[in-house]
């Protein structure tokens, strides 16, 4: 419980070094040690997707990754993806389409959607629904989220959005 591990990693492009408890998961590390509050805790069972972040380019459940395992890793959170502008168009589509209500699931949802659009630039609605089906949203009923992701894909492909 009290085992401490020294780690040095990159978070949103900045190098950070911390001594962490071996049991501390990535969400707590981001929130409590780094003050990055954009990553949310929803279930801590790896089910709801609220804590989705990127580690070395792949999306992970922050609650299922131990910070101690991330020495040398590169972590990207919603704050970093917002500041670089990488997902600005997707975020704007979420705002325009009201695909975000309470906003608690939204950072994880956006990072998951961005992951889909990198792998499949022209996904069908069914593919969007499938890819997002590990991210729980209680507010929207998903329709608007699917619309926003679809519209972003179209715009990136040079087509006018609906």
């Amino acid at each position: 419980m009290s085992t401490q591990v020294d780690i040095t990693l990159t978070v949103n492009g900045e190098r950070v070094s911390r001594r962490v408890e071996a049991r501390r998961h990535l969400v707590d590390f981001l929130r409590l040690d780094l003050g990055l509050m954009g990553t949310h805790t929803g279930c801590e069972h790896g089910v709801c997707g609220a804590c989705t972040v990127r580690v070395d380019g792949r999306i992970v459940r922050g609650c299922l990754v131990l910070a101690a395992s991330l020495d040398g890793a590169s972590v990207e959170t919603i704050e970093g993806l917002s500041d670089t502008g990488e997902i600005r168009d997707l975020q704007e589509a979420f705002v325009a389409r009201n695909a975000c209500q309470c906003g608690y699931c939204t950072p994880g949802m956006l990072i998951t959607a961005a992951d889909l659009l990198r792998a499949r630039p022209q996904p069908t609605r069914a593919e969007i629904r499938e890819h997002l089906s590990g991210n729980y949203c209680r507010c929207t009923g998903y329709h608007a989220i699917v619309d926003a992701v679809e519209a972003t894909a179209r715009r990136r492909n040079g087509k006018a959005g609906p």
Partner: protein
Amino acid sequence: MNEVIDPRSVDRPNSYIGKSVPRPNARKLVEGRGQFVDDIVLPRMVHAAFVRSPHAHARILRIDAAEALGMPGVLRVLTGKDLEPHCEPWVATLAHLKGMKSAPQRPLPIERATWAGEPVAAVVAESRAAAEDALARVRVDYEPLPAAVDMETALAPGTPVIHPELGDNLCFQRVNETGKVDDAFARAHRIVEATFHTGRHTGATLEPRSILADFNRASGKLTVYHSTQAPHMMQSVFAKHMRLAEGDVRVICGDVGGSYGIKVHVYPDEVAVAVIARLMGRPVKFVADRLESFASDIHARDHRIKARMAVDADGRILAIDVDDLTGIGPYSVYPRTSAVEGNQVVNLVGGPYDFPNFRAKTTVVFQNKTPTCQYRAVGHPIATTVTEGLVDLAAEAVGLDPVELRRRNLMRDDSYPRTSPAGMKFEGLSHIASLDKLLAMMDYAGLRAEQARLRERGIHRGIGFASFIELTNPSPFMYGIGGARISAQDGCTVRIDPDGSVMAATGVTEQGQGTEAVIRQIVAEAVGVPIAEVRVITGDTLTTPYGGGTWACRGTGIGGEAALQAGLAVKAATLKVAGAMLQAQPDALDLVDGHIVEKRSGQARMPLAELARIVYFRGDTLPPDLPRELMQTRHFITKEYPFAFTNGVQACWLEVDVETGLVTLLKHWCVEDCGRIVNPLLVDEQVRGGIVQGIGGALYEHCIYSPEGQLMVGSMADYLVPMAAEMPDIEVGHVETPTKESLLGAKGAGEAGTAGAPAALMNAINDALRPFGAKVLAQPFTPERILAALGKVPARWPAPAPTVAAGSPAHGAGSARAEGFWTRLFGRRGT
């Protein structure tokens, strides 16, 4: 004159009411830069975690905290006895619910734990992890007691009485009766009868319940950062029960990660946190984890309803007779009470229909399970399921299409104002227009043809309908007359600042619906400024007008009207100043797009910012006796009608795999009439989100208990919620019948989706199963239950089949058939 909100005016400058304007607060949310309670860190903040009862019912013999107190970082362990001197217990009853009773509840119990998951001791430590580590070291000696678990036997002799001082486990009972019900059944052409179950489920807000309480010993003030829907109500609760002046309590409600009714109640662990903050004189944070959310957030909709309907040979409804039973846990929940859901059922059953004879009884009983209380669309999904389920049974019994039977019985659109058999006053509804619009949207005839074609290939699709009413804009008749300190009025303050921008502080709150957007639109239009110039303040008892918050679909209808009136008052005050400055009559001037203009020509005379600069910094240049009140507050309360009813109709199109019992949702439609629509984009997403929440309860979500009262679903891996892949696209349409109670004309929009979706889904499944004579009436409609209805697996629960009879079975006869698990439709006899 209704100029301000005439939708025809939407193309003139700063006309925002009726437009799909994006939410001003959405940008921060998509960047992860909102501020939820758990994001707030205060100096010397400590964390609470709770020891929770592992027993449904047990005597607390001894709590030994010695070992826990020795753990690293642990500061305090507190029990019910420790908190008792510092907090008055509460009893959740409402005086207008005659005969209702409940027992005193404390932040932590002293003698007995009464549900598995009830908090019994608090550990306070320097971190949440340290507090949780210590939970296992708090030794609680329990004497397990027999539990009252099954609501069906709650009142039976031999069942333990949970609160002996109450005499029995009955919380509340009410019969709502009109006309001659027994006579109507005696002369009916057909009687359909069925028993429905709406499964106990819960809100599963993605952000768990969260509270951070801070007590300043020097000032004597308690500040509570709270994920809540009703900051002023909570201010009153903390003050009253902690014996503080209301003025010494400030409740701040920032971003809320979903609530849906879950966060409008008083939870014992949250009150404990406030009391502990006062005892320790430092900030205490508590954020529920997912397991404790399932075990301690309110549950809802645990109802068994025996219901029957009498119809004549033309399919006219003659009578509805309903017997509702609901188990609410060991305490009625404060301060709204847990009797309201059952009370809503007896008020709302049969709501859309024109029929003369009505009887509905609700029986609300205590049991040793998690307490239930108001959750999105309180009582509506239950009443709608029963009503619409009976309507479809009746249509089948008399050989009519379900749409035709509805058309023959729905209240006519020109028949208002009127009062329903259940006593609900309707100002103006549009059931027929809504149904017509829905049928056009969905191409009903085309779907029926497709259904028939696919059936020949062994593909079983179903169409289900649900007409509904939704109670919105509640007056004091909901809670206030019962003695609860819950405000039905709401206020808004609008202020013009020196740069010509506008501040609006409102008593209604934001939990993601778009309250801030709607208030901003209304104020921008009412004052006459570009929408970007308006900023909205919500969720702070220190800085907003007193109000009820956002629940029961009152945010736009009540809070929006207050904002409209305050904005108009500011505009009038501004034009008075402008008249003096410009040597003009105030009513010859207007305020448009941030400029004072001549009303007739539209010619710009002066920027609002210049007027404000002079008022605030060069008031010496104005006539001495000129009022310059550029800040106005208005309050609004409904007066003529206890509630403003929204109405509408939904349809569901789905496919049932009769080999696996799996339901695939193909499409869902809803036409809703919520009066004046302020922001179509937001309204449609309220409808869609509400529908999916209703689908969740109907198809997946279930708080399953063991016979001993143990909750068997503790994670989101075993409590299933709707996810993107399983949900359909949802088409939303509108009919607009504004309420005349307000200038704005808005009724609530947020719960209609949830009210109607389960019924539409149930009717669609049963429509798909029609060739097999199978029916499901117990939610959630799991594959197992569908297969059981098809006779492919044994049923594990009492599921009485619906019946059709030509005679008049004695009331309650359905239970005598409860042993019949297989769905059967019999008695198609008579003329």
